[in-house]
C-alpha cells in the first residue's frame, strides 16, 4: 500500500489529514478511530511489530533535505502497512517562525525537524517533547549510542526543562578540510596529512594562491566565515568562551582576539578567499567547487556537491582533519535534528519512526548511502553503510576525528543568536572593508552585542 502523501507548503496540515482519514474510515464503514486504536500510549520498553503501528503520522522536513528525506519517509511507510504517513517540506529559513505559529494554532506535526541552535526554544515553547525517558528505556534506541557532543546540543540548558533531551542529531556534521588534488598537483604541493598544523595550512595556502594582473584568480583556502560554529570553536580552542559565566558576551577577550586574528589575518594577506568574493561566486562552497579555491572547511553533508563538481575519482579530491594550533584542535560542529512534537497524538508511531530512522538497515542506512550524512551514532562508527562507500572521500577517519574534536555553541537565547552573528559579521566587514583594526572593531562589537543582549 502506498499511503504516503507529500506536500510542499509553509505549514503542517495535520487537521486536513485527520478530516481526510475520518471521512475515509466512515465511508469504509469500519467506524474505527485511530486515535483510540491503542497505539497512542506506548508501553515503555516495548517495541511494536511493524503491523502494530497504526493511525497517522505527520512529519515536517527541511526543504534542503529534499529529496532524500522524502525517500526515507516513503521507505518507512512501505515498512508499516497499517500506518498512513504524511510529510511536508518546510522552508528552512522560516522554519522556526512556522513551527511557533503551528504550535500556537495547535497544528504541529507528530515528528518535527529541528536543529541544535533552536533546541531550547522549541523545548520552552512546547513544540518538542522530552525524549529522555524514551531513550532511557527503549530496547533499540539509547542516548548512549549517540556521539556525546552532538547529543549534548539537544539537551536543554536552564529553565524548567533543564537537562531534558528534546531532539536527536540527524548527522554528525563537524568540520574537516577538503582539498582539490588537481590544484595541488599543478602547484607541485604535497597533499596535507592528518598531522598537519595551522602554519602548514597557511604556507600551503600561500603556495596555492595565484595572482594575475593584480587580481587573485586562485585562493588557497576558504570557509564559511559567517558561521558561528567556525569562530566559536576557535575561541574555545584558544582557551576562551564566547559567553562568560555571568551571561555576558566576550567578543573582545584575549582568546577571542586570537580567534579573530586567526581568521582575518590570512584574508587580509590575500591567501584566504574574502567573503565578498565568495558572495559574488554564489556562496562559500562555490569557489571550491569551481576550482578557484584549493581548500575548503566543510562537513560530510557537502560531499555530494563536491563529488558532482570535482569528480568521483579518488585522484580528484581528498579530505583531511583540521590542522592543530599549538597541539590543540577544536572544530566547528552542529547538526540538524529530529524530535517528537509535544502535542503528538500518535506517540507510538513517532517513537517507532525514530527507531527505524536510526537503524542501520532503515533510515540511517539510506541516508548514509547518499554520502550526505555522517551517522551520529557511535555504534555506526565502523559501519559499512558509510565506510564502504566508493571513494572519494578516502580518508573516512577524518570525519570520526572531527566528531571527537567538535565544539559546541554556547547557550545564547535563540532570538539573540542572529543579532550576535550580525554584530560579528559587521565587525569582520569593518576590518576587511574599512581597514579598522581587529582590536577596535571587536571591542566595539562586544559593546553592541551586549547592549542588544540586555535590551532583550
Amino acid at each position: 500500500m502506498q499511503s504516503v502523501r507529500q506536500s510542499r507548503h509553509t505549514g503542517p496540515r495535520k487537521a486536513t489529514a485527520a478530516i481526510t482519514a475520518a471521512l475515509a474510515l466512515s465511508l469504509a464503514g469500519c467506524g474505527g478511530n485511530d486515535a483510540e486504536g491503542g497505539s497512542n500510549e506506548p508501553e515503555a520498553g516495548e517495541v511494536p511489530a511493524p503491523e502494530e503501528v497504526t493511525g497517522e503520522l505527520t512529519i515536517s522536513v527541511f526543504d534542503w533535505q529534499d529529496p532524500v528525506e522524502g525517500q526515507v519517509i516513503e521507505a518507512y511507510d512501505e515498512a508499516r502497512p497499517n500506518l498512513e504517513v504524511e510529510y511536508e517540506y518546510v522552508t528552512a529559513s522560516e522554519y522556526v517562525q512556522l513551527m511557533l505559529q503551528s504550535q500556537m494554532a495547535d497544528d504541529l506535526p507528530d515528528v518535527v525537524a529541528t536543529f541544535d541552535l533552536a533546541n531550547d526554544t522549541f523545548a520552552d515553547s512546547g513544540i518538542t517533547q522530552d525524549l529522555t525517558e524514551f531513550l532511557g528505556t527503549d530496547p533499540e534506541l539509547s542516548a548512549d549510542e549517540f556521539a556525546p557532543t552532538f547529543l549534548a546540543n539537544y539537551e536543554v540548558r536552564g529553565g524548567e526543562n533543564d537537562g531534558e533531551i528534546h531532539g536527536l542529531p540527524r548527522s554528525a556534521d563537524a568540520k574537516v578540510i577538503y582539498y582539490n588534488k588537481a590544484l595541488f598537483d599543478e602547484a607541485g604541493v604535497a597533499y596535507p596529512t592528518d598531522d598537519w598544523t595551522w602554519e602548514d595550512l597557511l604556507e600551503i595556502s600561500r603556495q596555492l594562491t595565484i595572482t594575475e594582473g593584480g587580481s587573485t584568480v586562485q585562493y588557497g583556502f576558504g570557509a564559511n566565515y559567517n558561521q558561528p560554529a567556525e569562530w566559536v570553536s576557535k575561541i574555545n580552542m584558544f582557551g576562551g568562551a564566547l559567553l562568560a559565566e555571568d551571561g555576558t558576551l566576550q567578543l573582545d577577550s584575549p582568546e577571542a582576539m586570537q580567534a579573530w586574528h586567526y581568521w582575518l589575518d590570512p584574508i587580509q594577506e590575500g591567501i584566504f578567499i574574502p567573503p565578498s568574493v565568495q558572495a559574488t561566486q554564489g556562496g562559500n562552497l562555490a569557489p571550491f567547487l569551481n576550482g578557484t579555491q584549493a581548500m575548503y572547511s566543510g562537513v560530510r553533508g557537502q560531499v555530494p556537491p563536491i563529488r558532482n563538481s570535482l569528480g568521483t575519482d579518488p585522484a580528484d579530491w581528498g579530505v583531511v582533519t583540521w590542522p592543530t594550533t599549538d597541539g590543540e584542535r577544536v572544530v566547528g560542529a552542529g547538526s540538524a535534528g529530529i524530535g517528537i512534537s509535544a502535542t503528538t497524538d500518535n506517540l507510538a508511531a513517532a517513537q517507532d519512526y525514530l527507531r527505524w530512522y536510526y537503524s542501520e538497515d532503515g533510515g540511517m542506512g539510506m541516508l548514509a548511502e547518499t554520502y550526505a550524512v555522517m551517522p551520529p551514532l557511535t555504534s555506526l562508527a565502523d559501519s559499512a553503510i558509510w565506510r564502504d562507500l566508493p571513494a572519494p572521500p578516502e580518508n573516512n577517519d577524518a570525519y570520526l576525528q572531527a566528531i571527537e574534536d567538535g565544539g559546541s555553541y554556547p547557550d545564547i537565547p535563540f532570538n539573540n543568536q542572529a543579532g550576535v552573528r550580525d554584530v560579528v559579521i559587521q565587525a569582520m566587514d569593518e576590518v576587511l572593508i574599512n581597514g579598522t583594526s581587529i582590536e577596535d572593531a571587536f571591542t566595539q562589537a562586544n559593546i553592541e552585542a551586549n547592549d542588544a543582549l540586555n535590551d532583550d
Partner: protein
Amino acid sequence: MTDVASSSRSHASAVPAPNSGAGHRPGRGRPTRSSGHRGDRRGLWAAILLAPNLSVFTVFVIVPALLAFGLSFFEWDLTSDAKWVGLENYLRFLGDERALTSLRLTAILMATTAIPIVFLGFVIAIGVNVPTRWMRVVRTLYFMPIVISFVASAVLWRFLYDPTYGLINTTLSLMGIEGPEWLFSPTWAPAAVAIVVIWLNIPTAVIFYLAALQQIPHERIEAAHLDGAGAWSRARHILWPGVRQQTFFVSVVTTLHVLYQTFDIVSVMTQGGPLRSTEVFIYYLYETAFRSFDIGYASALATVLFICIAALTFLVYRPQLKENE
C-alpha cells in the same frame, strides 16, 4: 427606505456629474424618485461586487494591520506570553540609531530613485509613442523588467555587478575604467540597489505615461509644431502638463514600490550590507520580526512605516486634492 432614497436624492443634487455642467443648471439634473431607486440599486450592486474583495482585504490587510498596531504596545517573542509595555517600543525606536539610520537610508533611496523613474519614464514614453515599424519590439524590450520577478532581477543584477567577471565592470575596463566593487563597497552598494530599483520601476512609469500621452489631442501638438515650437518646447509646454495627473500617480506608486521592492532586492543582493549601508527600513523591520523574534518592537516599526507612507501619500496628493476642490 424613504430616508435612504431622500438622502440619495439630496446627495445627487449636490454633486454634479463630472463634466456634465448639471450643477450650473438647476432643474435639468434634478433627481426623480426612479433615479433614486436606480441609485439604490447601483449602490447595492456596488456593495455586492465589492464585498468579496473587501472581505479579503479586511481579513488579510485591515485586521492584521490593526493587530500589529495592538502588538506594538507589547513585548512578545512568540515563545513567551506577551507583556504590556505601553509606548516603550515607540520610545525605543526614537533612540534606536540603527532604525533611524535605516529610515534615513530609505528616504534617500526614495528621493534618488523616484525622480529618475518619473523623468526617465516620461522621456522613454515620449520615445516609444512614435508610431514606427519596430516600435512594438522596442516597447516590449522596455517593458521586459515588469514581467521578471524582483528576486530573479536581483540575482541577475548580482551577476552584472560582479567586480571581476560582471558585465558592468568588464565593459568599464574595456574603456580603461576600473569599476568599483559594487555590492561590497559601502559607498557603491546603495547606488547599486538604487539602479536596480530604477530599472524595475521604469516600465510601470512608461505604461502610465504612454497611456496619458496617447490621450493628448494630436491636433494640439501639431498646432504647436506649426507655430514653430521645437521638441523641447512641445515636451515642456504641452506633453508635461498633459500628463500631470499621471506624474502624481506614478510618484506615489513608485514611492510605495521603492519601500517594498527594496526588501527583495536587498535581501538577495546585499542582506543589508556591507556595513549596513543598504539596510533599508523594511529590511530592518523584517530582521527584527523574523530573525530576532522581537514582534512587539517590529510591530511598532511597522506602525511608524505606515504613518510615513500615509503622510507621504498625502503630501504627494495634496496639490491634486486642492486642485479638485
